[in-house]
């Protein structure tokens, strides 16, 4: 016992005294423990110390202490295990219970356990048979899961493969490649099916692609690739209508209009006639007519487009090309009406903007013509009125004079044309 300790005297509170008292208590604790080392170990199953009456309310249930004896605690249990260990270190009852749970088998316990039903071989066998019959996740139930996952994996792989092949075929589809070639370098006003918007670039115009004009070899890579694929297919199936049409389309882009017209006329004659075929035929004729100045070709193009419009009334590409051809043929009123129809069907904002621009220009031109027409009618209404412009002109020494022309039999078949001529 600590010599400083005096039960009859109040404990001192000075730091030095406190230190001495604590040092004394510690030494007493250590000595007390060492003195026990020689004595026999405490009996772990002293019933009074670990029995049901011993534990205060705050103590855990006896079985919970077994957590301190189990396998390495899971992280989720570590806080509880730590708390139990700390509690047992400070609670004599729980410390004894823990010692009892972790001690070696005693003779008395051995005798008790030998008397259990389950200690006999028969008891164990009976229990084993019962346990073997309990529900389980057998191999046959695990297998479907395995098959399910394998099947799902294969299906996913197949889906990805199909997707990749479809994407590759779409990306390398000659039709798409021709459309991309058109968008890459749009050399004429008419549109091509499936092509995105691009401004016309007349400076890149490649007539014929003949070696002499310096344009050879300037076709886009897409156009050349498409051409190669088309040729390969046609080598295998020279009369395939679809591939022949694509060849004609590539001819148009390469400005080989004669070849294109020849192929497309043959396909139209053989049938079946589709709006797509008529659209390409119209493009070939229109471009050839523009290049050669042939009215006849451009009139044929408009005929084709009218037929295509009948077959596919809502196709914006057909309507666009038809409006351009009508404008070219001088059919201003018809062109305005077709542009208005086109604006109802087109969804691409860029193409829509071009349509609006063209319609606006056409309407301005129409208004201008109407103004001229009304002026002409006023001037031609009487002989005095006919003389008035000349007199006015002479009087004002106007730098310009208006020359009116009636119905034109030449040019582009315009119902009414006006020219503003310099003096």
């Amino acid at each position: 016992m600590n010599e400083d300790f005096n039960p009859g005297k109040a404990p001192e509170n000075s730091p030095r005294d406190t230190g001495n008292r604590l040092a004394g208590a510690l030494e007493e604790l250590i000595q007390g423990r060492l003195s026990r080392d020689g004595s026999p170990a405490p009996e772990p199953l002293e019933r009074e110390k670990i029995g049901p009456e011993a534990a205060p309310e705050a103590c855990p249930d006896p079985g919970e202490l077994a957590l301190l004896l189990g396998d390495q605690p899971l992280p989720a249990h570590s806080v509880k295990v730590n708390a139990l260990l700390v509690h047992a270190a400070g609670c004599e009852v729980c410390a004894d219970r823990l010692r009892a749970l972790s001690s070696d088998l005693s003779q008395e316990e051995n005798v008790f356990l030998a008397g259990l039903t389950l200690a006999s071989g028969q008891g164990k066998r009976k229990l084993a048979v019962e346990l073997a019959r309990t529900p389980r996740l057998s191999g046959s139930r695990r297998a479907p899961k395995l098959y399910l996952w394998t099947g799902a994996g294969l299906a996913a792989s197949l889906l990805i493969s199909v997707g990749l092949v479809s994407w590759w075929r779409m990306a390398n589809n000659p039709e798409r490649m021709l459309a991309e070639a058109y968008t890459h370098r749009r050399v004429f006003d008419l549109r091509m099916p499936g092509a995105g918007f691009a401004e016309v670039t007349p400076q890149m115009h490649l007539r014929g692609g003949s070696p002499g004009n310096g344009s050879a070899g300037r076709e886009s890579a897409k156009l050349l690739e498409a051409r190669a694929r088309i040729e390969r297919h046609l080598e295998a199936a020279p009369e395939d209508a679809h591939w022949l049409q694509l060849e004609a389309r590539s001819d148009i882009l390469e400005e080989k209009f004669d070849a294109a017209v020849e192929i497309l006329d043959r396909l139209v004659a053989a049938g079946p006639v589709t709006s797509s075929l008529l659209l390409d035929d119209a493009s070939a004729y229109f471009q050839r007519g523009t290049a050669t100045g042939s009215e006849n070709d451009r009139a044929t193009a408009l005929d084709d487009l009218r037929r295509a419009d009948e077959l596919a009334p809502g196709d914006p590409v057909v309507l666009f090309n038809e409006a351009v051809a009508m404008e070219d043929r001088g059919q201003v009123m018809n062109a305005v009406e077709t542009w208005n129809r086109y604006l109802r069907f087109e969804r691409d904002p860029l193409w829509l903007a071009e349509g609006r621009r063209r319609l606006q220009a056409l309407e301005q031109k129409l208004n201008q013509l109407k103004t001229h027409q009304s002026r002409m009618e006023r001037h031609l209404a009487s002989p005095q009125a006919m003389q008035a412009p000349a007199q006015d002109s002479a009087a004002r020494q106007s730098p310009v004079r208006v020359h009116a022309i009636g119905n034109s039999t030449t040019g582009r078949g315009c119902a009414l044309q006006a020219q503003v001529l310099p003096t």
Partner: protein
Amino acid sequence: MNESQTSVNDLAKACAHSADAAEWEELVRRCVPLASLMALRISRMWVRDASPATVDDIVQEVFLKLCEQERRILRDFEPRGEDSFLGLLRMVSASVANDYFRRIYSTKRGGKVVTMPLGDDDAQAPMDGAGPAMRMHQSALLAELDEKLRSAPESIAERDRALFWLYYRQGYTAEEIARLSAAGLTAKGVESALRRVTMWLRDEVGQKRPDRPPESG
């Protein structure tokens, strides 16, 4: 499968999906002694005289617990050392035994029964033969020492503080402490930890004496 030569871990894994009575019989043969012992010891902490029938019932419940939910415990078991299944079995047995008695008390008496000793708390007395005032004063000093240990968690971990008190206050030997898997130390490791805590505490209370490490036993 040669059941008698298979480790208990492998046997438990095999029984997770097996309907083979021979495999199960071997597992039961190896596990019944430990499950029975835990059931007996927990029973004696709940009731004064545990009958063999009660222990038999608890052991059967332990095995049925292993087979619940299509043998979930066995299926989920991941060996973490040699015969680690026995560690799991020890915890399952204690838990089942606990539940068994909780159930009985809940049914019969309407809840957990806590019996408080009415007499003198001699069981808690640290020093035999000391009077109440002296014991109280002694407890206060020990509480101050514990406060010292708590005040420096960076030097003395909570686990080491628990080991210190298990050894010096509860009279555990280093081997007994090492049997607690929660301690996570061998007997030598326990001795080393105790030596370190003791030296630190002596320094703290200003007691400069030669180091006397705790001896094994």
